[in-house]
C-alpha cells in the first residue's frame, strides 16, 4: 500500500528539470521572520472583539444617536420644554400624514374617537409629535431635555465614582500593609450601609436638585470600583515591569499613571459602564418617589412620575418616557456586557 501511493511521486521527482527552480532571494528570507498580522494595540484589539458582538454595536449606535439628540436638545426640540400652553393641555400625539389611531391626534372618549386637536382649536400647522402634558407642555421636548438631565447626572456621577474609586483602590493596593488593612476595614463598614438609605438621607439634607443627586450618588457609588481596582493593583504591583520602574527610582505617582492605570483601564471602563445605568435608574427612582429633581425641570424619572398620575386617561405621558428609559438602560447594559467580553476574553464564558 505504501509503495502504490509513492510511485507517482517518485516518477514525478525523476522528471524534474533545473529550470523549474529559482534561486531564493534575500527578501523572501526576511519575510519569514515578519509577523504577518498587523500588531494591535489594546484598544484596537478590544474594538475588533467588540465589533463581533452585534447587540453591543447596535447599542453603541443607539446611545450615540441618543446622546447627540440630547446634546442638541436646544436645537432639535420643537418647543420650549417648560412653557405652559394651558389651552392646548393634554393633547394626544399627532404626527402629520400618519393616520394610525394614537398618532393622529385623536383620542377615545367613551366609545368614539374624537379629534382633540379640532376640539381645542389647535391651528392646522401646529402639532405635537408625542402630545402634551396636563399643563400643555410638549412631551417630546420634555423627554429630550429630561434625557439630557438624566444623562448628565449619570455621566458626572460615574466620573466621580471613577475618580474616588480608582484613587482609593490604587492607594490601598499600592501601599499595602497597615494602610491597606485600615482602608479595607473602612470599606467593609461602608459596604454594610444600604446605598439607597445614604442617597435618600443626603437628598434630605441637601436641597433637591441635579447637584445634590450627583453628590448623593457619588458618595455611595465608588465602593465597588475601589474594590476592583485594589484587587487588580495587588496583582499588578508584583509584576516585573513595575519592579523595574521602582528600581529605577520612578515616583509612585508616575508609576500609577504610566504603568498601573493603563493596565487597569479595562476593568475601570467596564466598572464605569455598569455604574452609568445604575445612576440613571437611581435618579429615576428618586424622582419617582418624589425626592428627585424639583419641578419644572424634567428628568426621565419626573416625567414617568407625572405620567403615572394620569396614566389611565393619558397613557402616552407615561409610556413614552418609560420607553426612553428602558431603551437607554438596555443599551447601556448590553454595551457594558459587550465591553466586558471584549476587554477580558478570559472572563468570557
Amino acid at each position, binding site marked *: 500500500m505504501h509503495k502504490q501511493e509513492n510511485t507517482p511521486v517518485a516518477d514525478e521527482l525523476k522528471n524534474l528539470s533545473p529550470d523549474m527552480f529559482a534561486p531564493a532571494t534575500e527578501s523572501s528570507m526576511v519575510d519569514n521572520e515578519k509577523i504577518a498580522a498587523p500588531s494591535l494595540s489594546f484598544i484596537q484589539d478590544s474594538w475588533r472583539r467588540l465589533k463581533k458582538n452585534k447587540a453591543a454595536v447596535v447599542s453603541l449606535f443607539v446611545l450615540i444617536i441618543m446622546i447627540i439628540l440630547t446634546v442638541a436638545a436646544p436645537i432639535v426640540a420643537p418647543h420650549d420644554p417648560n412653557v405652559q400652553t394651558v389651552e392646548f393641555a393634554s393633547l394626544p400625539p399627532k404626527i402629520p400624514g400618519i393616520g394610525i389611531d394614537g398618532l393622529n391626534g385623536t383620542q377615545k372618549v367613551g366609545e368614539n374617537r374624537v379629534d382633540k386637536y379640532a376640539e381645542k382649536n389647535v391651528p392646522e400647522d401646529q402639532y405635537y409629535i408625542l402630545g402634551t402634558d396636563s399643563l400643555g407642555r410638549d412631551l417630546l421636548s420634555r423627554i429630550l431635555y429630561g434625557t439630557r438631565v438624566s444623562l448628565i447626572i449619570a455621566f458626572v456621577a460615574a466620573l466621580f465614582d471613577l475618580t474616588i474609586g480608582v484613587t482609593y483602590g490604587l492607594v490601598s493596593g499600592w501601599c499595602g500593609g497597615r494602610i491597606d488593612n485600615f482602608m479595607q476595614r473602612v470599606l467593609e*463598614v461602608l459596604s*454594610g450601609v444600604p446605598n439607597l438609605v445614604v442617597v435618600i438621607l*443626603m437628598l*434630605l439634607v441637601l436641597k433637591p436638585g441635579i447637584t445634590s443627586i450627583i453628590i448623593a450618588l457619588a458618595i455611595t457609588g465608588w465602593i465597588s470600583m475601589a474594590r476592583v481596582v485594589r484587587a487588580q493593583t495587588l496583582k499588578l504591583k508584583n509584576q516585573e515591569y513595575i519592579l523595574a520602574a521602582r528600581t529605577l527610582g520612578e515616583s509612585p505617582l508616575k508609576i500609577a499613571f504610566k504603568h498601573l492605570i493603563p493596565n487597569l483601564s479595562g476593568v475601570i471602563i467596564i466598572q464605569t459602564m455598569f455604574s452609568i445605568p445604575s445612576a440613571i435608574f437611581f435618579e429615576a427612582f428618586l424622582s419617582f418617589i*418624589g425626592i428627585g429633581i424639583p419641578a419644572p425641570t424634567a428628568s426621565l424619572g419626573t416625567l414617568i412620575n407625572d405620567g403615572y398620575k394620569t396614566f389611565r386617561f393619558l397613557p402616552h405621558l407615561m409610556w413614552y418616557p418609560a420607553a426612553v428609559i428602558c431603551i437607554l438602560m438596555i443599551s447601556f*447594559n448590553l454595551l457594558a*456586557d459587550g465591553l466586558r467580553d471584549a476587554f477580558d476574553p478570559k472572563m468570557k*464564558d
Partner: protein
Amino acid sequence: MKSYAKFLGKRVLYMLLTLFLIASITFFLMKLLPGTPYSNQDKLSEEQIYIMNEQYGLNEPVPVQYLVYIGGLLQGDLGVSFQFSNTPVTKLLSTRIGPSLQLGIQAVALGTILGIVLGVIAAMYQNTWIDTLATFSAILGRSIPNFVIAVLLQLIFGVYLQWFPIALWDGGFSSSVLPTLALAISPLADSARFIRTEMVDVLSSDYVELARAKGLSRWTVAFKHGVRNALIPLVTILGPMAVGLMTGSMVVENIYAIPGIGEQFVKSIMTNDYPTIMGVTILYSAMLVFIILVVDILYGVIDPRIRVSTEGGDK
C-alpha cells in the same frame, strides 16, 4: 476551628461597628435637616413649641439627645413618631414588617428558582439561540426599572384582564401576586445571569466530563452534579439582592398600596418624620448587615475550602 471562631467574632464586631456608625450618622444628619416636625408651626405659639419640644426631648443639647437616642436604641426603642399620632416607631414599623417580609421572601423564592432554571437552560444550550434569548431576557429584567414593570403588570392584569386586584392588600394570595412578580424580576435576572456563568464553568470541569463518560444523561449530570456546585456562589449575591428588594419595595408598595415598610418610609420622608426615617434606616441597615454576616457564615459552612483559605490567609 479556633481561628474560624476568631474570624466570626471579628465579623460580628464589624457588624456592630457598622450599625453604630449608621445610627450615629443618621442621627446627626437628621439634626441638619431643614424644617421642623410640626406641620402647623405658624399657628403655634412659642410656648406651645417649647412645650412640645420638651415633650419630645428636643430642648436638650444635641450630645445629650444623641446619648438618649443611642441608649434607647440599645433597648430596642426607636423613639416616638412625630407624625403618626405619637405612635412609638417600633410599634409603627412592627405592624408593617409583615407584608414587606412576605413580599420580599416570595419575590426572592420565585425569582431565584426561575432564575436558576433560566440560567441552567442557557448554559446547557450555550451559544445557541436559546442561550441568546435567555441572556437577553435577563438583561431586559435588569434594565427595565421596577416601577415601570409594576405599572405595566398593574395595567395588564389589574385593569384590562382584571385577574388580580389593582391596588389592594388583604394579606391574601391574589393581592400579593402582582407585587411579588414586580419585585421578583430583578432577583430573577441577577440569578439567571450568575447561574449561567457558573454553570458554563462547572459543565466544562473534569468531574462533569467523568460523569458524562460514565454514561449519565446530559440533564442528570447538569442537575445532579452541575447545579449543586453552581449554587454555592449564588449565596454571595444575596446581599445585593436584599438591597435591590428594599429599593424595589419602596416603589412597588406605593404603586400597589401595600402597608409595608417601604411605603411608610416614603411617607415619612415626605412629612419630615425624623424618628421614623431613622428607624427605617437602622432597620434596613441592620437587615443588610445581618444578611452579609449570614452569607459569610453560610459560605464557610457550604464550601469548606473557603474556610480553610480564610484561616490560612493573612487576614
